């Protein structure tokens, strides 16, 4: 009755990078358990592993595997590289942070890598089912990472809040997906677009409801107002290095699926989601930038700045053009460099038993450590969008994309709020350079930290001077997808 079929191992080929990453995660746990004395090797194993996977991802050929569920195209490769870069830089910064905060959990790196597996799956998801599972695989390790530092009460609260909000966002997302499945009879993203076109479903109110729920779910994940309420508390409560990671890699992965669903699954509804996203982007930039003005905690300020930057990144998506998508993708890459850089300096400021997260702790930084202050200056200039840095180019292309799509009001708002944002970033710069602070601070640059900072500053300045490298890649990736 039953027949056995030989397993076709060639079918596994497209997911080999993911499998390797899972293997590394398991190896990290095993090494932590059986070779506790070699723990200092774990971050380097993570870095080397992620780099190897990154090379494999970059070398992978375009393919569609598992019956369309897993797609490798330029778009997926771009976001996979972005997420892996985020993991590598975070890992480089981690050892320093772990020493200061006394966080001795071997599973830390393993969770980081498993979360990266989720991100890779999200970037490649060609099916709503895989998309959702990837999202959960990405989010679950981060819930645990946020709650890692149990001696701090804020951390526990942040972990619970993040978990609840993440669950809520998943529920909205699933509701939207189930409506979409009910209307189209398929979970395959490409087929959904086809069915909507063939059956002329674009004007159906139920489809609009599905779209609304999907957008709400994704906006929770990328922290777009009014779904950003969890962000400041969670970002502030989480260990700084986890905050840095959360504000970059998972956000980029969430943008990857956001763009995938909107551009490849629901292009027919562009007339609906374009304006919705325009309003959300404007609101996000307003809330993020204006609330950041009145923060005394540097970490919380960066959290609000991260909300605002999600708003900027939306500008490219809402344009609904390939250019816009490419602009969003490039901006997310640039944002990785500048935001991780800024968080790296924040981690450097911290000492044992004193997290030093307030603005006052920056006072006189230039006198104590000219290098750290200069680096912070570069990252903040990039976050504002001041010309020689990559942040300027990134923002410029985003504004251009939104402008040429006709969202003039949104673009004006974005420029205005960018100008407002200059105030709170430059205030930190003023504190660093013009105020006197405590003198008895020693800066300890660990090798990993030096590598991370050098990489970030190189990215920010290098891409500011040669933006073509990144934008050409993003442009072809957005076209190829």
């Amino acid at each position, binding site marked *: 009755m039953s027949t056995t079929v030989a397993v076709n191992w060639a079918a596994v080929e497209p997911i080999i990078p993911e499998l390797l990453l899972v293997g590394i995660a398991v190896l990290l746990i095993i090494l932590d358990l059986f070779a506790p004395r070699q723990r200092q090797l774990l971050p380097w194993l993570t870095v080397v592993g992620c780099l190897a996977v990154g090379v494999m991802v970059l070398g992978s050929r375009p393919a569609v*595997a598992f019956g369309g569920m897993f797609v490798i195209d330029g778009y997926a490769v771009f976001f996979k590289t972005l997420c892996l870069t985020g993991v590598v830089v975070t890992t480089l910064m981690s050892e320093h942070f772990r020493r200061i905060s006394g966080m001795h959990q071997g599973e830390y790196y393993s969770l980081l890598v498993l979360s990266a597996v989720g991100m890779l799956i999200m970037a490649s998801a060609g*099916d709503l089912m895989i998309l959702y599972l990837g999202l959960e695989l990405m989010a679950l390790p981060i819930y645990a990472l946020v709650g*890692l530092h149990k001696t701090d009460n804020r951390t526990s609260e942040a972990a619970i809040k993040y978990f609840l909000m993440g669950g809520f966002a998943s529920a909205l997302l699933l509701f939207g997906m189930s409506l979409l499945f009910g209307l189209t009879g398929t979970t395959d993203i490409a087929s959904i677009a086809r069915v909507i076109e063939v059956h002329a479903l674009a004007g159906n109110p139920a489809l609009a409801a599905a779209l609304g729920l999907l957008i709400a779910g994704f906006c929770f994940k990328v922290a777009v107002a009014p779904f950003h309420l969890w962000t400041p508390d969670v970002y502030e409560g989480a260990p700084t290095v986890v905050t840095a990671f959360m504000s970059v890699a998972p956000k980029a992965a969430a943008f990857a699926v956001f763009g995938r669903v909107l551009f490849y699954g629901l292009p027919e509804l562009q007339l609906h989601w374009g304006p919705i996203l325009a309003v959300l982007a404007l609101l996000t930039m307003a809330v993020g930038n204006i609330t950041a003005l009145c923060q005394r905690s540097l970490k919380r300020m960066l959290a609000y700045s991260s909300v605002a930057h999600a708003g900027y990144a939306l500008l490219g998506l809402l344009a609904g053009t390939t250019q816009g998508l490419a602009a969003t993708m490039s901006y997310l890459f640039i944002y990785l460099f500048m935001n991780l850089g800024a968080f790296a300096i924040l981690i450097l400021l911290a000492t044992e038993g004193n997290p030093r997260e307030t603005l006052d702790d920056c006072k006189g930084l230039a006198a104590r450590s000219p290098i750290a202050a200069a680096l912070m200056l570069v990252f903040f200039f990039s976050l504002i969008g001041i010309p020689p840095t990559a942040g300027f180019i990134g923002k410029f292309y985003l504004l251009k994309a939104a402008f040429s799509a006709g969202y003039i009001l949104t673009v004006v708002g974005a420029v205005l709020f960018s100008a407002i944002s200059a105030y709170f970033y430059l205030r930190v710069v003023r504190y660093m350079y013009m105020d006197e602070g405590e003198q008895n601070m020693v800066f300890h640059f660990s090798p990993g930290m030096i590598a991370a900072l050098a990489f970030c500053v190189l990215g920010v300045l290098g891409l500011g001077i040669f933006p073509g490298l990144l934008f050409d890649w993003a442009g072809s990736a957005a076209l190829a997808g």
Partner: protein
Amino acid sequence: MLTQLFFGYCALMIIMSGILAISLRNPVHCVLMVLVMFLHMAGLYLTLNAEFLAAVQIIVYAGAVLVLYLFVLFLVSLRDEIRLNPFVGNVWIGRGIAIGLALALITVLPSFIPGERGDWPLAAVREVTHTKAMGLELYTTYLLAFEIAGLILLVAVIGGLVLARREQGQPPDHEGDEVVPPAHRQLDNNEEVRR
């Protein structure tokens, strides 16, 4: 007609027990409400001709998962309740949003058109039986999804371990860990969980 009535009953019970599960104060009552919810979800699967799922729902969720929940509840002394500041200041904002969302969904309901049928119409499922149909699909079409779900379980195990374990050098009865089931805490059987 009967099926619709049964569906209505199950749906109503699921919503009611779901709301009760998050609003009751006594954790044991909450878990029992979740049990009621799981049983009615199994009922929903029955209306869909998915007997296997219904059975699994009862065996795995109502049987295994809930018993584990109860064990955890009895092992952990829950006297120190976690208190979180509400995310939104006024409760009515949340309720308003929920009611608005429900109304919006109800208004779009009439325009809902079921999409194309998949590869498994009811007749085909009846012919090969539901269990076999599901097994076939699960291990062919949805193999990748199935494996990722397995990976998620691995993550859940590691994550649970990380959260539940005491940090090295942390005093055994630290107050920062009430979020995590403090398995190391001394049990006091004489004390009831009082609310």
